[in-house]
């Protein structure tokens, strides 16, 4: 059981303000992901929740209990560190028991918890080893086990998977997610990996320069980004951004790529966005469209209007499940994502369809969302 509320959290180092008023409210037992580029303040925020750093202002509430000023041990939290931070001189058993001993849990109960945790994480055979005798993945399990043994109200994870190799990372990702469902506890998870954020989070806070850029479900963050930063940060390969100018044509409101020579290509604006973009007529704005929204002509769902354009293939990157096509629209590079069975050759032409219904528009000056 746990519900975390952060109210207007500020943090300054001297004159340097690194967190400018963070507000987050999670639902009961939610998995909150803090994501952003390095230096965005996400780890500082986690340390403030943990009590390892002192906030300069604002309130932290966990189940309506105010945590400000409490030392880490009185906050009913557990934390998993990027470096695992297992005590090198202690066996796995003692690493897990350490927190329980500190809390004066009776001996019989300690042993019971140890066995439960070891079974849950399948580390029973490692209990008498020391951390340096374990592989990275095993160390990670022990670090998680140490946190679980405490049965805290809130788990904090500080980029726990970034030291693991790619395969193990995917495994541990689903394991942590399974644990979250099993334990029914709130978790706060810091990462810079947007796939981790998308796959694990119930609630994602995208941070940049000490400000929350957007707080929402993975779907809303991905499909409905609040600004250009969020749109560009989430998704791999990144969203395509094109400078375009809306103009009135006989067929309705259309987009022309800025700086296009001659007639150039015209992209239609879907009816639902026409109202918002009418005020931008003749002005240069930014079109954002994800690679998977520029794809094979055959992929339209029923009732969806596609706009197809024939373009030059400059480079192909087959990733397996799909193929990335690098091309150019009126001089601006674009990445498209097509089905791997589509026959393409570098240097040839191909027809790509733009799902304009899914496109988003930003103000080129401040990056705010226009439509």
């Amino acid at each position, binding site marked *: 059981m746990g519900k975390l509320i952060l109210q207007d959290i500020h943090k300054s180092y001297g004159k340097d303000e690194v967190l400018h008023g963070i507000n987050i409210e999670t639902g009961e037992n939610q998995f909150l992901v803090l994501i952003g580029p390095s230096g965005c303040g996400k780890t500082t925020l986690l340390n403030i929740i*943990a009590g*390892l750093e002192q906030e300069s202002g604002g309130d932290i509430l966990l189940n309506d209990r105010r945590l400000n000023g409490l*030392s*880490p*041990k009185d906050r009913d*939290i*557990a*934390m998993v*560190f*990027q*470096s*695992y*931070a*297992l*005590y*090198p*001189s*202690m066996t796995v058993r003692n690493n897990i028991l*350490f*927190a329980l001993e*500190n*809390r004066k849990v009776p001996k019989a109960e300690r042993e019971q918890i140890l066995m439960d945790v070891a079974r849950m994480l399948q580390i029973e055979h490692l209990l008498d080893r020391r*951390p*340096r005798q374990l592989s990275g993945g095993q160390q990670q399990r022990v670090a998680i086990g*140490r946190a679980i043994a*405490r049965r805290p109200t809130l788990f904090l994870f500080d980029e726990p998977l970034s030291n693991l190799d790619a395969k193990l990372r995917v495994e541990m990702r689903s394991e942590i997610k399974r644990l979250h469902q099993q334990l029914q506890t709130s978790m706060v998870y810091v990462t810079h990996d947007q796939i981790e954020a998308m796959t694990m989070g119930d609630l994602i806070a995208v941070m940049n320069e000490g400000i929350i850029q957007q707080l929402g479900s993975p779907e809303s963050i991905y499909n409905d980004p609040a600004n250009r930063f969020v749109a560009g940060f989430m998704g791999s390969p990144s969203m395509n951004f094109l400078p375009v100018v809306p103009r009135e044509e006989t067929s309705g409101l259309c987009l022309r790529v800025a700086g296009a020579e001659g007639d150039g290509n015209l992209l239609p604006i879907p009816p639902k966005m026409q109202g918002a973009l009418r005020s931008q007529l003749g002005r240069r704005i930014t079109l954002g469209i994800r690679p998977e929204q520029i794809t094979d002509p055959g992929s339209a769902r029923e009732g969806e209007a596609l706009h197809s354009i024939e373009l030059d293939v400059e480079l192909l990157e087959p990733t397996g499940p799909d193929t990335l096509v690098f091309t150019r629209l009126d001089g601006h590079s674009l990445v498209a994502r097509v089905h791997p069975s589509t026959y393409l050759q570098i240097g040839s032409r191909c027809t790509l369809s733009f799902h304009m219904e899914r496109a988003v528009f930003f103000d080129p000056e401040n990056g705010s969302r226009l439509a």
Partner: protein
Amino acid sequence: MRRLPIYLLLTLAALFFLLPLYIMLVTSFKTMPEIYNQGILALPRQFDLYAWRHAWSGATIGASNQGIHPFFINSFELVIPAVIISTAIGAINGYILTHWRFRGANIIFYLLLLGTVFPFQIILLPMAWVQGKLHIAGTLIPGLVMVHIIYGLAFTTLFFRNYYVGIPHDLVRAARVDGAGFFRIFWRVMLPLSTPIIMVTAIWQFTMIWNNFLFGVVFTNSDQQPVTVAINDLVDTVTSVHMWNVDMAAALIAAIPTLVVYLLAGKYFVRGLTGGAVKG
């Protein structure tokens, strides 16, 4: 064959350093007539243990004629508490300066560093004044012990700080989240990782304190003096003839403890100075 000059040079250097030791050893086993009639480098005709026995328990030093053994014991009574206490405080200091940093921690550290470059002589007068005020002037315990603890703190703190800087801070943070406090983290997390640096510091302090002469001669009264001062008195107390063999034996006895410590713990010394801290 190309290494020959290197070996030659090293052998020469070794001989150069070992020669005084050799002279001391052979002289200590000679009788006085032998010393006068033979060359200084000659081996003794028979190993005579008189000088060793006399130096240990019979020689006249100051007002006593019990040899150097009471002073040898004095030195142990001095060195054991002084090494333990200065190492312990150095460890706590190093732990605070690296993992419980406070405003001005760096200034404190640099001021402490200054302590490592002070010559002994500078602290003689102020320390004598302090000891007078505390009414412990002239005593071995606690007077001289205190002098060595205070003088040694700059070194022990420096050693531990430089070692603990290499221990990941996440360990302390994890222990804090796990509910451990300042001393519990020190005791359960830091100390078990500290064996190499404890050995280095203890050897360093043992050698410095055992071999120290100046503080002993300035701060202790005659029957409280450490062995280094006693040897000086022994050499100075000339009766009719100068007993070279007894002087040499006494000096060798005084050198044995530091040698033993180095032989027993020397490998830690090298390891502690070269090896980095433990990986998290």
